[in-house]
C-alpha cells in the first residue's frame, strides 16, 4: 500500500503539472485567436465597404435608385453582409437592404454623417447592437471622398463569434487530447517503476513470514532489477538455513521418541521383573511383570522401600549388591523370594549399577525360576521311557524279515510259469498269418511280427521297425492322422482300409484293426493291432463297381454314371455362373440294318469302334457314355463357347463316317446328333437328356449324319406330339366311350364292268373339341410311339367285323357273283418288324369268321425297303393266310420291282398325284406316261391296278382307255360310314354301280 501511495502521488504530480500547462496554453492562445480573428473580420468589412463604394461608383453616381438597389442586393448576397445602405451626397437614403425600415441605431449614424468633420477622411468602423441583440460591425465608407454620398455596411458578428468559438474549441480539444495522451504515458511509465517495487515488497513480506515458496519475477537491468536479484539470493540463503535447521531438530526428536517408545515397550513387555532402586533402597521404577511375579497387580509401589515391599532377603540382595557391583558388570544372585501372601518362589536377580544425573541407581532384573526347575525333573522321566520302547521295536523287525524271505521264494515259482506262457504266445505272434504290431502314438513301432514284415515286403520285423518308424507306408499322406483321430475318438480302429507302399514300391490294400492299450492311470501305452492284405478283395470290389457303372461292351460309362456326371455338371453350373457344358445324344443311323445283316459280332465291333472314335474326340474331362443299343450320350464339360460343342459334333460325325474295316468287311455308318447347349435352364438331368434326344430325332428326321441343336420350337413340338400321343392313346383305350376313332369305307370301282369292287378302309380321328385329324398327322406319331400296334389291331378287328357284314350282304344278293371283291386295310410298316403281326391277324380273321380272300393289306413301299429280310418273311406268311397284299402309292418311292416279286404282291395303287396329272401334260409332263407304264406293268405281272383320287370323267376315261381296271375317288363316292357302305352293297352296287359316270344311265 505504501507503493500504491507512491504511484498515486507521482501520477497526481504529473497530472497537475500537465494540467496547469495545458490550461495556461489554452487560455492564452484562445484570447490571441479571438483578437486576431476580430481584427481580420473588421478588415474584411472595411474591404467590402470600400469595394462597394469604389467598384460601383458609376451606378452610385447615376442616382438611379433601382440600379443602386440591384447593385447592393448583389453585394449583400455575395459578401454575406447583414445590410448595405447608400446615402446620396445630401445624406438622404437612396437604397438599403433593410426590411421593413432602417433601424434607428443605423439612422443615427446616417444622420450624423454629413456633420462630421472628418467625413471625407476615410472609413469609419464601429460596433453596433441592432434590435434583436444582433451585434454588427458597421463600416461607413464615403464615395469619392463624400462627394458621391456614402456607403454603410453592416457585418453580423454572430458568424465571426461562432467561428472564433469553433476555433478555440478545436484548439482546446487538441490541448486536452495532448494532455490525456501525456497522462496515459505517465500512467504507464510510473506503473512501470512502482509495479516491480510493489512486487518486491510483497516478496519480502512473504520471505519475512517464512514463505520461501514465493518467487519474484522482477527482472530488469536497472537498480530495481539488482535489488530484486539481491533479495532473491538472500531469501534463497535464509531458506536454506532455516530448512536445514528445522530438519535436524525434527530428526533428533524423532530418534528420541523412537528410542523411548522401544525402551518402554521392552520394559513393559519383558517376562522378567524390572526394579530400579536408588541408593537408599527406594523403588524408583518397576514394570508390570514384577508386580505379576509377586502377585501385586495394580499396586503402585514406586517410592516405597524395596526391603519393605519385597521382603528383607530381596531387599538385602538389592542393596548389598550395590557395593559388589560397584564399577563392574551385573552381578547374579539366586534368592528365595516371598510374595506378600507368604508363598515363596525361587528367583534369580541380576543387579547392575547405573549412574544417572540424579545419582546412581541399582537396576535389578528378577526372574521366577520355579518353572525351569520343574522341567528339568520331567526330562529325566522321558529318557527312561524311550529306552524301553526301542527294545520293543527291535523285536518286531526281526519277525518281519523272516516273512519276506518266504515271499521271495514263492515269486520265483510264479516267474517261471510266466516265462513259459510268454514263450507260447510269442510262438503265435511269430507264426500268425496276419501282421501283428504294436505302435506308439508317435508311430514308432514297438514290435511287429514276421507276417507283418512279409506283407510289407521286409525281410525281418526289425527291418520294418527300423524303416517304418521313420516314414509312413501309407500312399495317402494324411492316413496316419486319420488313424490317430479314429483311435483317439473311439479307442479302437476297425477295418481301417488303406493303400500302402511296400518296400519295393508296389501298392497294396491293407485292412487294419487296432486298439488302444492304456495303463491303469489311463495313460496311452501303445496301440496294438492286426494287418491283413486285402488287395485281392479290393480288386474284386473295384471291378464290380466298374461293371455297375460301365457298359461291358465298350467300357464306356453307362446311363447311371452319365446321369451322375450330368447331375454334378449341373450342380457346378449352378455354383459357377461361367461354367458351361453341353449334352449330346447320338444314335447310329441304320445300326439295326448292320446288326441284322452282318451279325451281332460285327455290330458289337462297330459299337466298340464308335466308342473309341468318340473317346478320341472327347477330352479327358468329358463323359462319353453308351446308353445301350446304338445310343450314346456325351457330356462336354467346361466349354468356353457353344462353338466348341458344334465343332465336337462335326468332328464326331466326320470320324464316324470314315469307312471301317471290321473282320475284313468294310462297313460305313453314320450318326445323328442332338445337342442341348442352353443347359442352364434345366432343373432335372432327365429333362435335359430328353431334349437332347428330341433334337437327335429332329436331326434324324432331316436326314442322316447330321446334328441338330435343341431349340424352343422343338420343345414346343415335342410337347404337342406328346399331347397328341396322350390324346390318341386315350382315344384308342376309351373308344367305346369316346367314339373318337371311326372307320370309313371308300368304294373301289371296277371301271371296266362299272361295279363296286371293294372298299378301302380309312381311319378318322375326331379329337376332343371336334378337330378332325387326318391319318397323315397322327399315324407317324403312332408309329413312333408304338401306339400303331394296338391301333392297327383295332382297325383290323373293326374292319373285319364290317367286312363280314359286307360278305353277308353280298352273299344275300348273289352267292357266287362277286369274285375279287376285297376290302383294303392299311397296315403300318412297323408291323413288318413285329413277329406278332401274323398271329394276331390270323386270330382276328378267325374270330370274326371272315373270309381271308375278302381282305387285302395295304402297305407302303418304305416298309419293304427298311426291313427287307423280316418283311419278306412276314409278307409270305400273310399271303399264306390268304390275305391280299397291296402296295400303296406305288411309283412314289423306290418302286422296286424286285419287291413285287419277292413279296408276292397282288395289287398296286397308282398315287393320286399321278392321276391328278392326267390331261395336264403341259404342266407336269410324265404323269400319263407313268400311269401308262404302271398299268402296263400291272397287266404284265397280273396285278390289280387301282387308280386313286379319280375326280373327273376325263381321268376316268383316260384310265379306262389305258386298261386300268380299278379306280377310287370322289368322282364315284367319298369315304362312307359302314352303314352307308353296307346299304350300297345291298342296293346292288357290286353288280352295277348305280350312277356310273361317263356311260350315262346305261
Amino acid at each position, binding site marked *: 500500500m505504501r507503493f500504491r501511495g507512491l504511484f498515486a502521488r507521482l501520477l497526481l504530480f504529473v497530472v497537475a503539472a500537465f494540467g496547469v500547462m495545458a490550461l495556461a496554453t489554452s487560455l492564452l492562445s484562445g484570447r490571441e485567436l479571438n483578437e486576431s480573428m476580430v481584427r481580420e473580420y473588421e478588415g474584411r468589412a472595411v474591404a467590402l465597404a470600400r469595394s462597394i463604394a469604389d467598384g460601383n461608383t458609376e451606378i452610385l453616381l447615376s442616382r438611379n435608385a*433601382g440600379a443602386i438597389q440591384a447593385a447592393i442586393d448583389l453585394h449583400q448576397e455575395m459578401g454575406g453582409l447583414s445590410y448595405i445602405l447608400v446615402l446620396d451626397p445630401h445624406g438622404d437614403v437612396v*437604397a438599403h437592404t*433593410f*426590411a*421593413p*425600415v432602417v433601424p434607428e441605431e443605423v439612422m443615427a449614424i446616417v444622420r450624423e454623417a454629413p456633420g462630421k468633420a472628418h467625413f471625407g477622411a476615410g472609413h469609419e468602423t464601429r460596433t453596433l447592437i441592432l434590435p434583436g441583440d444582433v451585434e454588427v460591425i458597421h463600416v461607413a465608407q464615403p464615395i469619392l471622398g463624400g462627394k458621391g454620398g456614402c456607403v454603410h455596411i453592416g457585418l453580423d458578428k454572430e458568424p465571426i463569434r461562432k467561428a472564433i468559438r469553433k476555433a478555440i474549441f478545436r484548439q482546446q480539444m487538441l490541448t486536452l487530447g495532448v494532455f490525456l495522451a501525456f497522462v496515459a504515458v505517465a500512467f504507464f511509465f510510473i506503473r512501470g517503476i512502482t509495479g516491480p517495487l510493489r512486487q518486491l515488497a510483497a516478496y519480502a513480506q512473504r520471505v519475512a513470514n517464512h514463505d520461501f515458496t514465493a518467487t519474484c519475477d522482477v527482472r530488469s537491468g536497472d537498480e530495481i532489477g539488482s535489488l530484486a536479484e539481491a533479495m532473491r539470493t538472500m531469501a534463497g540463503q535464509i531458506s536454506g538455513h532455516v530448512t536445514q535447521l528445522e530438519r535436524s531438530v525434527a530428526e533428533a526428536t524423532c530418534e528420541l521418541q523412537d528410542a523411548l517408545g522401544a525402551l518402554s515397550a521392552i520394559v513393559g513387555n519383558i517376562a522378567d521383573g524390572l526394579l530400579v532402586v536408588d541408593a537408599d533402597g527406594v523403588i524408583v521404577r518397576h514394570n508390570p511383570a514384577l508386580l505379576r511375579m509377586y502377585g501385586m497387580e495394580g499396586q503402585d509401589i514406586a517410592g516405597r522401600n524395596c526391603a519393605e515391599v519385597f521382603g528383607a532377603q530381596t531387599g538385602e540382595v538389592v542393596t548389598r549388591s550395590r557395593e559388589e557391583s560397584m564399577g563392574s558388570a551385573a552381578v547374579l544372585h539366586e534368592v528365595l523370594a516371598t510374595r506378600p501372601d507368604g508363598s515363596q518362589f525361587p528367583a534369580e536377580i541380576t543387579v547392575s549399577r547405573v549412574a544417572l544425573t540424579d545419582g546412581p541407581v541399582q537396576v535389578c532384573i528378577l526372574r521366577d525360576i520355579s518353572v525351569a526347575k520343574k522341567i528339568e525333573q520331567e526330562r529325566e522321566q522321558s529318557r527312561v521311557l524311550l529306552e524301553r520302547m526301542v527294545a520293543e521295536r527291535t523285536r518286531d523287525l526281526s519277525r518281519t524279515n523272516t516273512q519276506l524271505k518266504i515271499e521271495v521264494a514263492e515269486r520265483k515259482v510264479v516267474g517261471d510259469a510266466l516265462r513259459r506262457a510268454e514263450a507260447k504266445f510269442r510262438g503265435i505272434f511269430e507264426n500268425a498269418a496276419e501282421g501283428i504290431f504294436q505302435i506308439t502314438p508317435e508311430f514308432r513301432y514297438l514290435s511287429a511280427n514276421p507276417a507283418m514284415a512279409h506283407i510289407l515286403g521286409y525281410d525281418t520285423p526289425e527291418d520294418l521297425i527300423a524303416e517304418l518308424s521313420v516314414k509312413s507306408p501309407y500312399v495317402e499322406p494324411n492316413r496316419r492322422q486319420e488313424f490317430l483321430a479314429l483311435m483317439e475318438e473311439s479307442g479302437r480302429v476297425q477295418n481301417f482300409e488303406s493303400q500302402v507302399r511296400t518296400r519295393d514300391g508296389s501298392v497294396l490294400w491293407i485292412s487294419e484293426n487296432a486298439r488302444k492299450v492304456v495303463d491303469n492311470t489311463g495313460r496311452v501305452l501303445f496301440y496294438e493291432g492286426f494287418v491283413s492284405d486285402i488287395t485281392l478283395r479290393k480288386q474284386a470290389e473295384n471291378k464290380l463297381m466298374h461293371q455297375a457303372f460301365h457298359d461291358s461292351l465298350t467300357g464306356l460309362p453307362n446311363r447311371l454314371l452319365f446321369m451322375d456326371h450330368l447331375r454334378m455338371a449341373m450342380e457346378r453350373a449352378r455354383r459357377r455362373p461361367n461354367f458351361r457344358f453341353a449334352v449330346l445324344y447320338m444314335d447310329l443311323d441304320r445300326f439295326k440294318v448292320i446288326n441284322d445283316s452282318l451279325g451281332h459280332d460285327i455290330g458289337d465291333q462297330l459299337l466298340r469302334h464308335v466308342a473309341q472314335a468318340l473317346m478320341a474326340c472327347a477330352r479327358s474331362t468329358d463323359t462319353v457314355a453308351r446308353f445301350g443299343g446304338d445310343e450314346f450320350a456325351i457330356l462336354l464339360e467346361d466349354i468356353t463357347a457353344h462353338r466348341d460343342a458344334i465343332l465336337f459334333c462335326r468332328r464326331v460325325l466326320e470320324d464316324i463316317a470314315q469307312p471301317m474295316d471290321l473282320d475284313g468287311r468294310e462297313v460305313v455308318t453314320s450318326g445323328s446328333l442332338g445337342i442341348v447347349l442352353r443347359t442352364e435352364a434345366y432343373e432335372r438331368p432327365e429333362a435335359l437328356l430328353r431334349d437332347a434326344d428330341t433334337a437327335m430325332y429332329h436331326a434324324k428326321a432331316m436326314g442322316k449324319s447330321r446334328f441338330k441343336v435343341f431349340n424352343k420350337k422343338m420343345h414346343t413340338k415335342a410337347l404337342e406330339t406328346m399331347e397328341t400321343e396322350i390324346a390318341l392313346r386315350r382315344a384308342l383305350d376309351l373308344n367305346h366311350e369316346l367314339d373318337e376313332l371311326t372307320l370309313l369305307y371308300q368304294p373301289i370301282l371296277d371301271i371296266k364292268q362299272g361295279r363296286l369292287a371293294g372298299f378301302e378302309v380309312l381311319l378318322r380321328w375326331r379329337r376332343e373339341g371336334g378337330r378332325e385329324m387326318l391319318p397323315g398327322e397322327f399315324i407317324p406319331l403312332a408309329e413312333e410311339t408304338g401306339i400303331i400296334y394296338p391301333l392297327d389291331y383295332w382297325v383290323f378287328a373293326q374292319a373285319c367285323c364290317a367286312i363280314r357284314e359286307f360278305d353277308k350282304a353280298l352273299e344275300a344278293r348273289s352267292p357266287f357273283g362277286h369274285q375279287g371283291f376285297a376290302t383294303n386295310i392299311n397296315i403300318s410298316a412297323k408291323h413288318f418288324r413285329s413277329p406278332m403281326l401274323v398271329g394276331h391277324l390270323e386270330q382276328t380273321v378267325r374270330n370274326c369268321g371272315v373270309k381271308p380272300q375278302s381282305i387285302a393289306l395295304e402297305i407302303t413301299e418304305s416298309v419293304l425297303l427298311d426291313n427287307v429280310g423280316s418283311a419278306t418273311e412276314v409278307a409270305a406268311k400273310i399271303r399264306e393266310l390268304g390275305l391280299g397284299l397291296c402296295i400303296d402309292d406305288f411309283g412314289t418311292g423306290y418302286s422296286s420291282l424286285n419287291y413285287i416279286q419277292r413279296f408276292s404282291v397282288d395289287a398296286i395303287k397308282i398315287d393320286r398325284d399321278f392321276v391328278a396329272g392326267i390331261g395336264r401334260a403341259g404342266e407336269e409332263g410324265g404323269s400319263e406316261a407313268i400311269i401308262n407304264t404302271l398299268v402296263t406293268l400291272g397287266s404284265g405281272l397280273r396285278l390289280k391296278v387301282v387308280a386313286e383320287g379319280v375326280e373327273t370323267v376325263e381321268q376316268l376315261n383316260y384310265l379306262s382307255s389305258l386298261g386300268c381296271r380299278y379306280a377310287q375317288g370322289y368322282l364315284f363316292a367319298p369315304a362312307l360310314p359302314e352303314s352307308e357302305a353296307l346299304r350300297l352293297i345291298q342296293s346292288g352296287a357290286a353288280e352295277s354301280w348305280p350312277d356310273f359316270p361317263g356311260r350315262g344311265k346305261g
Partner: protein
Amino acid sequence: MFRHGKPVSLASAACRARRAALSLTSRPAWRVALRPVLCLALCLVLAGLSPARAAERELVFGMSAAFTGPARGLGMEYYRGLMASFEHANAQGGAGGLRLVLSLRDDGYDPLPALANTIGFVEQERVFALLGYVGTPTTARVLPLLKHYEAEGMILLFPFTGADLLREPPYNSYVFNLRASYFDETRGVVEALVASGKRRIAVFHQGDIYGRNGWDGVRRALKGFGLSIVADVTYRRGAPYTQDFRQEVGLLMAAQPDAIVTVGTAPACAGFIRDARNAGLAAPIATLSFADADNLVKFLLAQGRVTGRDYTTELIFSEVVPSYDDPSLPAAKLYRQAMSQSHAALPAHLMREEYVPNRLSFEGFLAGQVLVEAVKRLGGAPTRAGLARVLLNQKNLDIGLGENINFEADHNQGLHQTYLMVYRDGGFQTLKPRHGVRP
C-alpha cells in the same frame, strides 16, 4: 432560330424539350440531358429528310417566367396571352409563313434560375429570341448576359416589367419593351393622388430592384410637386399572402400618411392591404400593374368572405393596358376571341386554374400581336438583327389599342399610356387613361 421538318414531330420535339426544361429541378440530370439530345438528333434527321418545305418552318422563342411559387400567376397569364396570339397566327398559316413556337422554362421569380434558363435557351435550344420574361429582378439579372451574347444579336422581347434598368443604357439596345415603365405608372399614380389633395404619401415596396425602382419613381414624381416620401417600408421578395405585415403597417401609420403607394407582387400587396385595413388605416392604397389587380382582388375577396368586411374600397390599381372588356377596342375583341379558341398549351402540372380573361394575358396577347406583325414583315430569311430592324422601322403600328406603337433606337418602349382603375361593384372601372409622355 429556324428549323425544317414535319410539323407534328417538330411540335412534339419542341414540346418535349420544354417539358425537360421545366422539370429541371425534379428529374435526374442524365434524363434531362438525354431527352434534348434525342430530340435534337431526331430533329436533325428529319431536317435532313425534308429540306425544301418552307411552309413548315418555325420560329422558336424562349420564355423564362415564374410558373411556380407566389408569383406564378404572372407567368401563367402572360404565357397564355402570348400563346393565344401565337396560335391565332399559326392557325392562319403562321406569321408570314413562319410557325411561331414558344418554349418555356420556370424560374420561380428567382434571378439565378432565370440566368440558367437563358443560357439554356441560347446555347441548347438555340431559340430565335427571348420573349416575355416576367419580373424585374429576374430580368435585370439576365441583362448582362444579353450583352455577353451581343455577337449573336440575342434580344429580349417584351419582358413583363416596367423597371427603369431595361429602358436605360447600357442594356436598352438588347431589349424591346412594350409596356409603360414603372416610372410612368408611379408618376400617374402620384399625380392622381396629389390632384386629389393627398400630400403625405408613403411607400410600401419590395426590397429589391423592382421595389426600389417603384420607390424611386414615387420619389421623383413627388419631387416634381416639392414633396417627398413621408415613410417607406420594405418587405422581402417572395412574401406569401399569409405573411404578417402588421409591423410594416404600424411603421407606416406612425408617419400618418394620407395615401400609400405599394410596389410589390399580388400576394404581398394583398397581405399588406389586409393588415392595413385591419389596423384601421383607411387611406387610399395604390398598386402597380405588376401587382396583378385581378389576382390581388381575388385574395381580398376571399379574405373579405372570411372576415365579413370589404377590403376592396379605397384601392387604386395602376395598369398599362386598357380593359379587355372595352368593346371599342378591336384588340380586346380579338383577344377574347383568340383566348376562347386557345388550347392553352401550358403543361398540365402548371395549369391549375381555368382560364378567365385577365389583364396579364391581355398584355401577353398584345405583345404576341406586336411580335406577329413584326415577324410578318421579316420576309423569307428571319434573323435577329432583321427582327430588331423591323421593330425599329415600323412606325405607328396600330394593333387596335387606341395607341400606336413606336420603337426607336434610343427609346425601346412601345407604349406609354397608363390606366388607373378601381374595383367597384364586383368589377374594375377605369378612372381615366393617362396619356404617356415620351421623355
